[in-house]
């Protein structure tokens, strides 16, 4: 038994490839747990960032600076009454959020956090991700249908139409990135997620910059399509409250509704990781080819530690700015403790063995984090697209450009 466990540690493969069930399970728990924590953090970040965009503070009471707000939200949603509409199809009503959730979480088994830091590396990785994440459309339609009410049905039809429209453009953009992987020395491309990042490593260029501006345009198309895919602003007409239909999740309350939100945030993180993998070099540190050498490697490897120390510093500054009133004592202590934990993590990240191992994961997560922030930024800034304009953008603008990019990439790839 112990041999089974330790036999994996010497290998240089993902546990899925090595076939080691134990470590697969461990990795699944870590990744899924991490995604769940990330979803909660994303919830907090969204509320705080949106509030600061709108010159207000956001949650401040539950825990210092609202840090425990997601927990309060979860508790509230858990204790809400579970309402099922009278005429609703109960089984379908029950299973719809589960489908969305499973589809959104299942894609994480191929997300590459590092060259061997993935649950597994299927050699059709990107196809798997796109395919499985499309299953959530099924869940959306089921949710709208099972609610047995006009407005959720219209909302779910709109939402599903939007999602499948933008998947076409997404797919085209992904194809152009895949084409670029075939331009390495072996002459064969790859669909595996780890393989795509390794192709970028071998070609010494992030696909964002390859055949400039083709890679960039493909990236932009994907970035827009992924926002539409996940029903986020500015493409959130199916969910918007001030429009006529309140969306496919109107009739869901409490925990079921929170499953939808969980699925939505997980899908956001999943498509952001696709974008990061395909164009932004996955787990590679910034400037891997222009700033080469051991010293630069060292500098970049210190950044995670400094980042956490910086966050700890911000937390401590927040502590000094807390009101000096007895009611705030617990919050002050909590924030100081949180800052201390961040500082401790930062210090741990300076230790060389940890430092080396954590690099890939850190850069991958940091890039995905940038995308998350962009999602919130879009939501704060842009008005909503009307549904027909949204479809027009998807079919008449993004799709032709994406097809053009694929063709041009192919042509230039052959010629160059």
């Amino acid at each position, binding site marked *: 038994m112990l041999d089974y466990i330790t036999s994996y540690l010497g290998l240089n493969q993902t546990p899925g490839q090595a076939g080691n069930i134990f470590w697969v399970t461990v990795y699944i728990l870590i990744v899924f747990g991490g995604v769940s924590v990330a979803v909660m953090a994303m919830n907090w970040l969204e509320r705080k960032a*949106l509030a600061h*965009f*709108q*010159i*207000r503070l956001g949650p401040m009471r539950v825990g210092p600076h609202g840090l425990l707000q997601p927990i309060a939200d979860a508790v509230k949603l858990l204790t809400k009454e579970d309402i099922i509409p009278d005429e609703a199809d109960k089984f379908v009503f029950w299973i719809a959020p589960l489908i969305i959730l499973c589809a959104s979480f299942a894609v994480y088994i191929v997300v590459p956090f590092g060259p061997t830091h993935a649950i597994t590396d299927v050699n059709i990785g990107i196809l798997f991700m796109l395919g499985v994440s499309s299953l959530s459309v099924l869940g959306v339609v089921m949710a709208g249908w099972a609610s047995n009410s*006009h407005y959720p049905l219209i909302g779910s039809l709109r939402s599903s139409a939007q999602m499948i429209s933008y998947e076409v453009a997404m797919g085209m953009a992904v194809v152009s990135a895949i084409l670029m992987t075939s331009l390495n020395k072996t002459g064969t491309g790859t669909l595996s997620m780890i393989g795509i990042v390794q192709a970028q490593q071998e070609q010494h260029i992030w696909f964002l910059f390859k055949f400039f501006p083709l890679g960039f345009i493909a990236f932009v198309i994907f970035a827009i399509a992924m926002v539409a895919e996940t029903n986020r*602003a*500015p493409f*959130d*007409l199916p969910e*918007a*409250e*001030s*429009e*006529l239909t309140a969306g496919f999740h109107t009739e869901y309350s409490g925990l079921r509704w929170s499953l939808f939100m969980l699925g939505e945030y997980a899908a956001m993180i999943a498509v952001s990781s696709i974008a990061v993998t395909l164009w932004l070099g996955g787990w590679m540190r910034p400037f891997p080819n222009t700033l080469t050498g051991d010293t630069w490697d060292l500098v970049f490897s210190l950044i995670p530690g400094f980042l956490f120390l910086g966050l700890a510093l911000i937390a401590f500054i927040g502590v000094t700015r807390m009101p000096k009133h007895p009611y705030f004592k617990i919050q002050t202590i909590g924030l100081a403790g949180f800052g201390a934990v961040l500082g401790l993590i930062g210090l741990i990240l300076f230790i060389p063995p940890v430092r080396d191992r954590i690099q890939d994961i850190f850069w991958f997560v940091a890039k995905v984090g940038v995308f998350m922030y962009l999602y919130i930024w879009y*939501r*704060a*800034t*842009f*008005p*909503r*697209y*009307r*549904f*027909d*304009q949204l479809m027009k953008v998807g079919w008449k603008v993004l799709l032709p450009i994406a097809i053009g990019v694929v063709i041009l990439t192919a042509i230039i790839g052959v010629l160059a």
Partner: protein
Amino acid sequence: MPDQMTKDPYLSNLELGQPDKTFLDSNELIINMGPQHPATHGVLRVILKLDGEKVLGTECVIGYLHRGVEKIAENRTYTMFNPYVDRMDYVAAVSNGLGYCEAVEKLMNIEAPPRANYIRVILTELNRIASHQLWLGTHALDIGAMTPLFYTFRDREEILKIFEKYCGARLTTHAFRIGGCLYEAYEGFEEDVKRYIDFLPPKIDEYEELLTTNRIWVERTRNIGKISAEDCKALGVTGPVLRASGVKWDIRKALPYANYTEFDFEIPTGTSGDTYDRYLVRMEEMRQSLRIIRQAVERIPEGPIMAKVPKVIKPPVGEVYHSIEAPKGELGYFIVSDGSTQPYRVRVRPPSFVNLQALDVMVRGALVADVIAVIGTLDIVLGEVDR
């Protein structure tokens, strides 16, 4: 179904009396945007007849906020009625008060002294800016941009602080009295107003930066809710809606009241009468209001703020109609006096009520999401529609 821009969209062809076909049987769907909206404009009920997403006809049901203000007026004296007018268009209460006081003053053949007129103009124009800021925030929120709401409300606070310092109330100010102003401009009034004049233009630029050239905003508002100048005049639509359709008409210039003839300002007009033009017109009106305030605050004369008005206001027998350019359009007061201390009839001509009629014309053939944008762009306040 008659074509949408023919001359009789006012026939009630919604056939609402017929039994409702379920939406699976026919193409037409009747949807109710009930009295309670998330997009708060007050309690307005709009019944839409849709063909898929296209609007075939609308019917507005109003009266949820009807308080019988005109009936109350017959049972109050002229001075006692003054606070009631604030509650109609509660967003621009100062304008309502100005219109009423000036109408009674006209009936009594009194003129407010110059200093009172200056104070009145400054407060009214500040109120116009506040009303437009509220409009901008809620209109942007309806279309989906969440952030301008917070910015405009934050800046509106400064105006409300000035009102509070002046007369004690932020929203329903009751600032003016028949014959002039009751309260003297407080110590520091001019400094506050001057500070606000410098504070606001960068903020208006900020709002414009967020919206005016924003691709999505333009697509949501351009060519939406178009109404031609002839339709506007025929329907009696006034205010920024009329000006955005190209008619350069503003009561402050056409039939001036208070002392607007002494100020130099422009009337912004649009060309195509769509929602985008109305947005631009109102943004420019904010800037022009600042211009008026700047001129006014530099030239406030000294003097009395109240004319010689008898203790008991008993206008001579007669009737008068007086209107002002409220932020929403032509706000008119028709007062019939029978010589007693109580008016015989007070009729308020509400701009929002008349503008709301135009909703049907503006929305025919548009999509459902545009109905909300158009209701927002008409800038209605239900307190005024229902009185």
